């Protein structure tokens, strides 16, 4: 019987099967940020086991509230900083070099096809874009990951989402994933992995694939996975060129993680993306999705472009292309947060930051803050935000606030209009 990508990765990492359907896997990466890690660190200290399984496989960042906004967040940063230092965790990204975890870790080449990755963050599923198994976990799983380099997972069942056709101009990976979540519902993929396959995925750059996989959790999935291909190799080449004779050799090696032709799926669903229009969420669940056309004219108070979903260079280019030479509506305030210092620098070099500032955007440092209502763009009660983030729960960006999830193109057009509207890139 053939195997899915997740099954192949599980087979290659199994340490134990303590019960029927339960696997204990060895971990290639344990990623850490300052919101969910300090309590794990403090607990390890308290139980006399302040150790790490492998300082080179642990990567850490301060990203959720940065720079620190108060004494408590300063304390979280301090806990991370001192821990990274005393254990020789050299890939620790502190203020000035820090970025949103699911943007900076891929950018550094830390994730490879076939890897197992955990992090105390639900959007860890992003890294499946590289053909890895990457899952968000809680602090206890993280703690054991740090100490022992293992994690338990249930036997992976996979839903295959076949994306056929080609995207129309002005329609992006964000629109696709919103349509997929609407189709699967918010718990339609719970305890399952989603493999994204088909020509529409093949045609996507890594930035877009990460957007796709990033929101797999919003359908309940453990991980979203794209198959490693030439695009994956091209992206990773600066980091792997000493490991392989040439790109062909890397591609041949990585291809072993692609699913077998006779792999068994829990479900296969298909979506012709050429039928899609730009999408946007309404209400408080990520499967509550309409077309932008249906939501046209809905006023917003704030526009936010950033996050692990859509704060990458490709996203900023698309948004800036729409904003160039224009200014935002006087009825909105707009914030852009490049997801990493590298993206920020490249956006500066390409003149994108100038365009955002000329349009009236506030440009913030890389941080997750606004997305979960912790800092850098919190909403007041009764306000709404057109946002390129991933979660529209009630109060997510601030108590009493409403979040409309959308692509950077739609967000940029919405900033100009002061109300939800399609971007000029989309011609109905």
């Amino acid at each position, binding site marked *: 019987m053939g195997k899915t990508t997740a099954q192949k990765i599980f087979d290659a990492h199994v*340490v*134990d099967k*303590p*019960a*029927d*359907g*339960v696997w*204990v896997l060895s971990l290639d990466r344990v990623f850490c940020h300052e*919101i*969910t890690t*300090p*309590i794990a660190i*403090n*607990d390890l200290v308290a*139980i006399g*086991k302040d150790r790490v399984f492998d300082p080179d496989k642990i990567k850490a960042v301060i990203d*959720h*509230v940065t720079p620190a906004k*108060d004494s*408590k*967040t300063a*304390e*979280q940063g301090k*806990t991370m900083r001192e821990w990274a230092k005393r254990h020789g965790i050299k890939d620790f990204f502190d203020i000035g070099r820090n970025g949103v975890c699911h943007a900076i870790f891929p950018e550094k080449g830390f994730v490879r096809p076939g890897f197992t990755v955990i992090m*105390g*963050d*639900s959007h*860890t599923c992003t890294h499946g874009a590289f053909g890895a198994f990457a899952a*968000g*976990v*809680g*602090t*206890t*799983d993280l*703690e*054991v990951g740090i*100490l*022992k380099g*293992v994690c*338990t997972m*249930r036997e992976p069942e996979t839903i295959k989402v076949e994306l056929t056709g080609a995207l129309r101009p002005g329609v992006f990976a964000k629109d696709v994933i919103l349509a997929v979540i609407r189709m699967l519902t*918010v*718990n339609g993929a*719970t*305890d399952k992995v989603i493999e994204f396959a088909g020509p529409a995925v093949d045609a996507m750059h890594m930035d877009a694939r990460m957007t796709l996989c990033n929101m797999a959790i919003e359908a*309940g999935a*453990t991980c979203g996975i794209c198959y490693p291909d030439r695009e994956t190799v091209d992206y990773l080449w600066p980091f792997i060129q000493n490991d392989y004779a040439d790109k062909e050799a890397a591609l041949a090696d990585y291809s072993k993680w692609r699913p077998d032709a006779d792999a068994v799926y829990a479900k296969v669903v298909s979506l012709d993306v050429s039928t899609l229009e730009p999408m946007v969420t309404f209400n*408080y*669940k990520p499967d509550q999705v309409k077309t932008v056309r249906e939501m046209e004219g809905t006023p917003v108070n704030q526009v936010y472009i950033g996050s692990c979903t859509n704060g990458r260079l490709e996203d900023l280019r698309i948004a800036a292309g729409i904003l160039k030479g224009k200014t935002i509506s006087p009825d909105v305030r707009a914030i852009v947060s490049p997801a990493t210092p590298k993206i920020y620098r490249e956006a500066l070099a390409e003149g994108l930051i100038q365009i955002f500032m000329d349009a009236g955007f506030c440009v913030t440092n890389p941080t997750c803050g606004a997305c*979960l*209502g*912790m800092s850098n763009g919190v909403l007041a009660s009764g306000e709404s935000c057109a946002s390129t983030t991933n*979660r529209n*729960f*009630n*109060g*997510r960006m601030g*108590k009493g606030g409403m979040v409309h999830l959308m692509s950077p193109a739609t967000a940029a057009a919405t900033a100009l209009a002061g109300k939800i509207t399609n971007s000029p890139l989309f011609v109905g």
Partner: protein
Amino acid sequence: MKNFNGKILFLDRSDINTDEIIPAKYLTELTKAALKPYCLEDLSLPGFDPKKDIAGKSVIVTRANFGCGSSREHAPWVLECNDINIVIAENFARIFRQNMFNCGLMAVQLDRAVIDELFATFAGTDAELTTDLNRMTFTVTNGSETRIYPFTVGDFDLELVKAGGWVNYADQKY
């Protein structure tokens, strides 16, 4: 092992997310105990008052997809701080469910029909639940009505509960 008995808090809604269970603004706390006053603070449920309705309750009975959203273990912790060690639902989000067992707490799935019956029979009454881990049954009573429901949890999940959580288990074994 924790206590899995007590008065029931009925939360009649699906998709209760971790932002509702413990809002992100409290994730800057460095101890679990500091979370206690904020339990279910942002729960969107008509008639529910977190300041009054949680006290004295030790069991949550709710609908589908409880604990969806963020990976924050602060959600199980804030329940635990409030002496709620068991949640019974139609189903759970994966990370929340795993976090519960990792802490030695229980997240038990019952069929929708049984959840419906629990709500129909016991919601709005002073109902109390007793867990029997040998017989794998819940006994629910409100004085006038008593019913017994069988349940299952995975063997490994049960081992975590008995070991007091995943840290203890993994440390002994791996």
